[in-house]
């Protein structure tokens, strides 16, 4: 992570952080959130999130006690909300990895303001996702069967099954994301340690900072480790959701059996992940006064990514229909007609309006720089992406090859409580993160501040912003 000799102003001549942001103001703005007592609003949000988490615990406890029949899943819809929620949460996590790894390797320095946030979101989303494969197996105490452990049964997972690939993909993803997030946190945790007055706080952050002193040697190792982890994470952005899509694509069910699934799923994952980052970012940015660090430029760039990925997803929806007709397979064609005009048409058209139509607003600069518009659109995208998974899973299953067994899936209260409960789990973890961990990567944002320019002079700072070639000019000074 070597910053250039002079901070390049890649996005035109506008600095990446807001006007007037300095090392000091940045550290103050980020660190004091973890130091001051939590505001009343935080407590209200935390307690409501925690009560949702409690609801999830009760719903899952009831599921363990009674059995999987408390959900609405039944023949022929064996997968329903459980897998929908799993894929939705995993998808949301992808934006974090894209921002932290792919944009890092492409030297997109605007990522520094949002990467910590997005990575934390990734980890919590993966935790929420992991709840579902763990509980949907029915007898949860046998969930360890998913791992290739030696046992007296001489029984191994079926390595030809995409479900076991999923176990490896998601567990690798969880491990690498956590490591990546933690390594990035070390310098900032050391900042919190150095600012701490309470000895216990000093000890806790000191232990987590792993003895970081900010020495040259430390930075060299840190940057190398960060680069390696970024390189490891980058293929995961593509591979994890590709593997998730194999759960469907390698089956023989019309509506699932499609080669377009891996890229289609990856685009959808990035799409929904950015929408979730946007929703959370808009709230946090307003509540904690981070407007000078996360600027309109950042938000606009994220909206552009949503426009691209949303259009990719729309293309995939269209292509599925085209292939169903062009492929000449009656069953495939039936499946897609049934999807758009059958009993679940309401879900299909909800998905189309939320995912394909709503992001098209971002073609207009006025709309993609409007906070209320982007807030509403980011939420509709999240709803739409949930419906996408629901449509793929349930509409393909509910009318399969045997018309006598056709059915209609309805969720039960336990389904609903479990899903809403994972939102509680997510927000509980997220609020704890906001409260105790620096939510912006202080050290990284400092690298793109004007002050990190070795030739920075406060009185010239303003002039700097308008010089096209400051490098040669200032080198002679």
């Amino acid at each position: 992570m070597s910053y250039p000799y002079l901070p390049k102003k890649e996005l035109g001549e506008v600095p990446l952080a807001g006007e007037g942001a300095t090392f000091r103001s940045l550290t103050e703005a980020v660190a004091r959130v973890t130091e001051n007592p939590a505001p009343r609003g935080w407590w209200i949000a935390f307690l409501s999130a925690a009560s949702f988490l409690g609801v999830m615990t009760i719903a899952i406890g009831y599921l363990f006690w009674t059995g999987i029949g408390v959900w609405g899943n039944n023949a022929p819809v064996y997968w329903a909300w459980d897998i929908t929620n799993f894929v939705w949460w995993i998808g949301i996590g992808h934006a974090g990895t894209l921002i932290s790894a792919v944009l890092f390797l492409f030297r997109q320095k605007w990522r520094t303001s949002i990467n910590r946030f997005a990575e934390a979101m990734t980890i919590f989303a993966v935790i929420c996702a992991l709840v579902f494969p763990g509980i949907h197996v029915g007898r949860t105490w046998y969930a360890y069967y998913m791992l290739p452990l030696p046992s007296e049964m001489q029984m191994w997972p079926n390595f030809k099954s995409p479900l076991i690939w999923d176990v490896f993909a998601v567990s690798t993803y969880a491990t690498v994301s956590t490591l990546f997030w933690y390594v990035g946190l070390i310098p900032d945790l050391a900042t919190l340690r150095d600012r701490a007055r309470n000895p216990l706080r000093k000890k806790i952050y000191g232990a987590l900072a792993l003895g970081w002193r900010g020495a040259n040697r430390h930075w060299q190792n840190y940057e190398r480790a960060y680069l390696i982890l970024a390189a490891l994470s980058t293929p995961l952005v593509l591979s994890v959701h590709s593997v998730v899509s194999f759960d469907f694509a390698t089956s023989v069910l019309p509506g699932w059996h499609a080669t377009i699934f891996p890229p289609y799923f990856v685009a959808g994952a990035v799409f929904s992940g950015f929408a979730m980052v946007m929703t959370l970012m808009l709230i946090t940015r307003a509540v904690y006064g981070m407007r000078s660090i996360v600027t309109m430029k950042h938000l606009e760039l994220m909206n552009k990514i949503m426009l691209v990925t949303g259009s990719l997803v729309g293309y995939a929806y269209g292509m599925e229909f085209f292939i169903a007709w062009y492929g000449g397979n009656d069953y495939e064609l039936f499946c897609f007609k049934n999807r758009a005009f059958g009993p679940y048409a309401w879900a299909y058209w909800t998905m189309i309006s939320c995912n394909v139509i709503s992001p098209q607003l971002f073609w207009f600069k006025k709309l993609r720089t409007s906070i209320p518009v982007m807030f509403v659109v980011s939420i509709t995208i999240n709803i739409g992406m949930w419906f996408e998974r629901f449509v793929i899973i349930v509409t393909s299953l509910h009318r399969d090859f045997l018309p006598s067994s056709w059915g209609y899936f309805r969720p039960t209260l336990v389904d609903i409580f479990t899903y809403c409960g994972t939102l509680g789990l997510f927000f509980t973890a997220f609020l704890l993160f906001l409260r105790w961990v620096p939510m912006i990567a202080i050290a990284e944002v400092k690298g793109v501040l004007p002050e990190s320019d070795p030739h920075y002079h406060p009185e010239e700072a303003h002039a700097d912003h308008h010089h096209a070639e400051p490098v040669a000019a200032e080198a002679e000074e």
Partner: protein
Amino acid sequence: MQIFPRSLNKLPFIAAAVGGILGPGVVLAAWYYVTPKNFQVGYAPTQPVPYSHRLHAGQMGMDCRYCHANVEKSAKAMIPPTQTCMGCHAMVRTESAKLAPVRSSWETGKPVEWVHVHKLPDHAYFDHSVHVGVGVGCATCHGRVDQMEVVASDQPINMGWCLDCHRNPTPNLRPRDQVTNMTWTPEQSKGFTPPEVHPPTHCSGCHR
């Protein structure tokens, strides 16, 4: 300013070493110890009647099938009904105190509540007749019952143990007329060619 003593620098290495040994260690220990080899073998519950296989099958040389009469025909080998016992004991040792439960069962019509020793889980399908039919000896799975005063489990009867034989059945096959012979050894049937059998090793072979 130092917050932590210098000796803590070793902690990551110690934690890595302990974690590296402990994690796989727990898995390997569970694999090796948490198995029916340790919980099933030697299980010898006290039966309501102190019936001695050593006396009946060993010293008197009764054939297994005299009591376990269904073993060649059905999935269950069958625990003999009271009538089978009384076939002899209506005349032999009619006053024995040990046989009191059998006589009361005979009078009341309530079966003797024998305790199940070789218990397979309900999700595992097992058929005695097919195993006996291809020449798997009684003693192969049940051990030397003719030497047991109280019947005890001789083999672990776990899934890996079943699979060991299903993958390579030949060493456990014998001529069909030797199936109930407790003292049979391969040397007694030189020139015997075991039948070609292909026992299932896929999931639904046993978990139907």
